[in-house]
């Protein structure tokens, strides 16, 4: 062991960069959110309103680039990856250097990381409004940008692990564990959910389709919340809260439990986004079960954070930093309480597809992420610029405006979500018919008014953040950039990074945990009888483990302590912990024969033109307002028709089940309306007779001008075939020919009805020929195809459960529905 003293200059420049980037993009993200929110009350907020405001001087049909379907992905991506992303990098770079007592390993990698990440954000801000998207929520960016993200993320990972390797502190502090988990898991999730085959430089189809795509997407989507918006922020909590109150964390032992249980359990909970669909029941129950288990570790973490303030509660009144952090952690507790609640199937039946979910997400992002960010920034700024915070009062004003903003937001979304479901589910006396039109429920004061309240809440929150930006800017101006230098006492004890793999893996804790988990997993998969045996086995293992632990406490604790001195074995265990949950869910669902998921219906293939129309639907982001999934719930079936079989979307790359309904479900839209109805509706939903006059759906006039890209179709069909969609053999010409003929036929029906077109047409034939080239026609062909399926012999298709998966829990909902149909 050799020890010496050395002076280190920390790289605080990069921390400043990330922080300023986070604040800047945060303002952009929130502004996009506020505009999007107002659009749901006043659809003209896409630019059309300029016409009214300027008394017609400024002619505007609205900007296609900021219609809701394109703006919402920009908002979500900016909030998650640009605002929280840059914030977490600032926090990670600052704290990791201090906790490792060394400067970040490579300044060059840090620079590449910073500028690469900003380049990605700029590219996102260009492509998303342009309608270039993969059509999967929070995974919308097109494939070339995906590759860039992967490269930059790996740069960050290398830099981080390299720093760990160089560290001058043998023990890894709890914050670092959470950063490790973040890096490993996000890599895994991101890669799997972005696997796709390009059809052009800007377009690709995801390799998964239908139910498989749904599972992969929500496995990713849920864990983006877990491992991008939660674990890094928990790491930040474990560093910055103790620092801000000058007290060590309440219980280190609790943080160990918090960490391992959270990392292990979170990854399983994805299917709670697909409750009450035709998804196999076992998966739904799995998702629900693990979501409920999340209560314990989440609250353990929250209490650990809050109790760190013990003896320093007075600071809660005086120090804005502590205020923000304490309330941020409290919102972590609130939203992780609400989350499991929403995962209970019966509650989810009410909450899903409504504003309630939106409120839930925002209590997490605005309350937990946003307030933690603010607390951290207010703490960092004086230290990074060597001065004091410009105005404590302003920070206090920010706090109160922000808090009122969040509360308005969350409360109004509860009211709006619940009351809309109640109205939608209202049946007449006979109990066989829904009484309220979809639009009428959306326009009811308890929904429309609440949505307006939400928009106001969001505006308040944004205002608060503007105050933060001013305050930090003024602080920076008052001081000058300082990089902290510090003398540290370096010792490289023999215990650091010396653990043998044998020592890491061959020991009681791992052996018992391994066997226990194996039995639990077998319990899910084995047929009846055997499954109970496994459950019993799991119980016995737990018992033996507790006994072994009591006998040899020192050994168990000592092993974990050794693990904390060895970053590589530690990281490998994190990987294993997250991979188990991932595999149990994903592998059966992804590898299982598709035919097994079909039930009694099989989707009819899209014609080339319909496929083109579908790509337009995806590109316009219609999925941000419309679902395509009739759940196995009675009122839903009464409103929209039969529940959606998994087989009905099996060839959909990407799936379009959606996650919220600002408009009605479209799964059974095909044939419900005439072509010219759709045309007029898309041109201006408010121009039609009936309830749509109150619609909040935007106008899509440009679809009647822009041309269909017929030439791209052969390649698209080829890729679909590669993905397993059973298209018959067709030549390039046949594909194009087929598409043009179908377009002409639809255009003819439109011309016959004399729909208005953007150009002067001398005759109906001229109008027809004009329309036959336009995106509108392709989109209509797709809408008319929605819900088309072929009946398949129930006997010829194996049952829908990915076998041999047990235990089989009877699905009452489905049985009831099939019965009532038969009557």
């Amino acid at each position, binding site marked *: 062991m050799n020890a010496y003293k050395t002076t280190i200059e920390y790289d605080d420049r990069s921390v400043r960069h990330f922080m300023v980037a986070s604040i800047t993009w945060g303002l952009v993200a929130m502004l996009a959110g506020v505009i999007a929110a107002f659009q749901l009350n006043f659809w003209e907020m896409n630019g059309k309103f300029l016409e009214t405001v300027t008394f017609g001087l400024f002619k505007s049909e609205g900007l296609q680039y900021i219609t809701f379907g394109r703006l919402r992905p920009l908002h979500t991506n900016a909030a998650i990856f640009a605002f929280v992303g840059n914030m977490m990098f600032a926090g990670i770079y600052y*704290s990791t250097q*201090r*906790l490792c*007592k060394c400067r970040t390993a490579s300044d060059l990698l840090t620079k590449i990381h910073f500028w690469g990440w900003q380049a990605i954000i700029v590219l996102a801000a260009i492509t998303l409004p342009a309608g270039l998207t993969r059509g999967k929520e929070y995974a919308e960016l097109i494939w070339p940008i995906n590759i860039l993200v992967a490269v930059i993320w790996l740069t960050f990972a290398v830099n981080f692990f390299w720093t760990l390797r160089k560290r001058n*502190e043998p*023990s890894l*502090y*709890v*914050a670092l564990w959470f950063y490790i988990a973040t890096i490993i898991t996000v890599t895994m999730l991101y890669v799997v959910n972005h696997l796709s085959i390009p059809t052009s430089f800007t377009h690709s189809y995801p390799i998964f389709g239908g139910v498989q795509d749904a599972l992969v997407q929500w496995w990713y989507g849920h864990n983006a919340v877990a491992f991008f918006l939660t674990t890094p922020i928990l790491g930040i909590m474990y*560093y910055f809260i*103790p*620092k801000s109150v*000058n007290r*060590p*964390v309440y*219980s*280190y*032992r*609790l*943080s*160990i*439990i918090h960490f391992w249980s959270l990392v292990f359990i979170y990854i399983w909970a994805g299917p709670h986004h697909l409750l009450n669909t035709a998804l196999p029941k076992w998966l739904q*129950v799995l998702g*629900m*079960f693990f979501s*409920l*288990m999340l*209560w*314990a570790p989440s*609250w*353990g973490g929250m*209490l650990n954070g809050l109790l760190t303030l013990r003896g320093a509660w007075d600071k809660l009144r005086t*120090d804005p930093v502590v205020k923000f952090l304490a309330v941020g952690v409290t919102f972590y507790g609130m939203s992780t309480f609400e989350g*499991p609640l929403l995962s*209970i*199937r*019966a509650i989810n039946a009410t909450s899903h597809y409504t504003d309630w979910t939106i409120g839930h997400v925002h209590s997490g992002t605005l309350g937990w992420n946003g307030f933690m960010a603010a607390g951290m920034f207010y703490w960092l700024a*004086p*230290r990074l610029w*060597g*001065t*004091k*915070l410009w105005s*404590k009062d302003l920070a206090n004003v920010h706090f109160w405006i922000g808090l009122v903003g969040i509360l308005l937001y969350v409360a109004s979304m509860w009211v709006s979500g619940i009351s809309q479901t109640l109205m939608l589910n209202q049946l007449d006396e006979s109990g066989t018919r829904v009484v309220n039109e979809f639009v009428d429920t959306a326009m009811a004061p308890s929904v429309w008014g609440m949505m307006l309240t939400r928009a106001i809440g969001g505006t308040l929150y944004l205002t608060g953040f503007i105050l933060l930006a001013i305050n930090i800017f003024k602080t920076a101006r008052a*001081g000058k950039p*300082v990089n*902290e*230098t*510090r*003398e*540290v*006492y370096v010792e490289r004890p023999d215990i650091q990074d010396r653990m043998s793999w044998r020592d890491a893996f061959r020991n009681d804790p791992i052996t018992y945990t391994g066997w226990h988990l194996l039995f639990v997993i077998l319990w899910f998969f084995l047929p009846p009888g055997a499954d109970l045996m496994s459950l019993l086995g799991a119980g016995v293992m737990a018992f033996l483990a507790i006994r072994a632990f009591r006998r040899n406490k020192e050994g168990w*604790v000592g092993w974990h*302590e050794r693990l*904390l001195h060895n970053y590589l074995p530690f990281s490998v265990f994190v990987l294993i912990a997250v991979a188990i949950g991932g595999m149990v869910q994903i592998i059966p669902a992804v590898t299982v024969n598709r035919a097994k998921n079909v039930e009694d219906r099989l989707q009819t293939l899209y014609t080339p033109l319909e496929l083109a129309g579908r790509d337009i639907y995806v590109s316009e982001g219609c999925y941000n307002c419309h679902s395509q999934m009739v759940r196995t719930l009675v009122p839903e079936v009464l409103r929209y028709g039969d529940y959606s079989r998994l087989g009905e979307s099996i060839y959909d790359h990407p799936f379009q089940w959606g996650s919220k309904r600002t408009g009605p479900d479209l799964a059974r839209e095909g044939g419900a309306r005439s072509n010219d109805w759709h045309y007029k509706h898309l041109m201006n939903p408010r121009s039609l007779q009936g309830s749509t006059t109150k619609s909040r759906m935007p106008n899509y006039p440009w679809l009647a001008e822009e041309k269909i890209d017929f030439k791209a179709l052969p390649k698209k069909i080829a890729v679909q075939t590669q993905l397993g969609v059973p298209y018959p053999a067709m030549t390039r010409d046949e594909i194009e020919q087929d598409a043009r003929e179908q377009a002409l036929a639809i255009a003819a029906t439109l011309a016959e009805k004399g729909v208005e077109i953007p150009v002067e047409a001398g005759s109906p034939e001229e109008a027809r020929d004009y329309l036959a080239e336009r995106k509108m026609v392709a989109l209509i062909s797709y809408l008319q195809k929605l819900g088309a399926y072929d009946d398949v012999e129930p006997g010829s298709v194996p049952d829908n459960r990915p076998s041999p998966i047990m235990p089989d829990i009877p699905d009452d909902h489905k049985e009831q529905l099939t019965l009532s149909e038969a009557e």
Partner: protein
Amino acid sequence: MEVLALTLFLSLLFAVLFLFLFVRERKQRGPGGVERDSLIPFDGDDDFSAPSGHQKDQ
């Protein structure tokens, strides 16, 4: 609806288990080896209430 009852039952079990462990944890606190690690963020802060190298805040 049994699903709901089962869920509530299980989650209550978890809550109780958690409370139990939490209370035990509180009782057993001592200057253990693990807890020492929680001081890492303050290592080298010669003045615990005003980290060295930083300008004084506020």
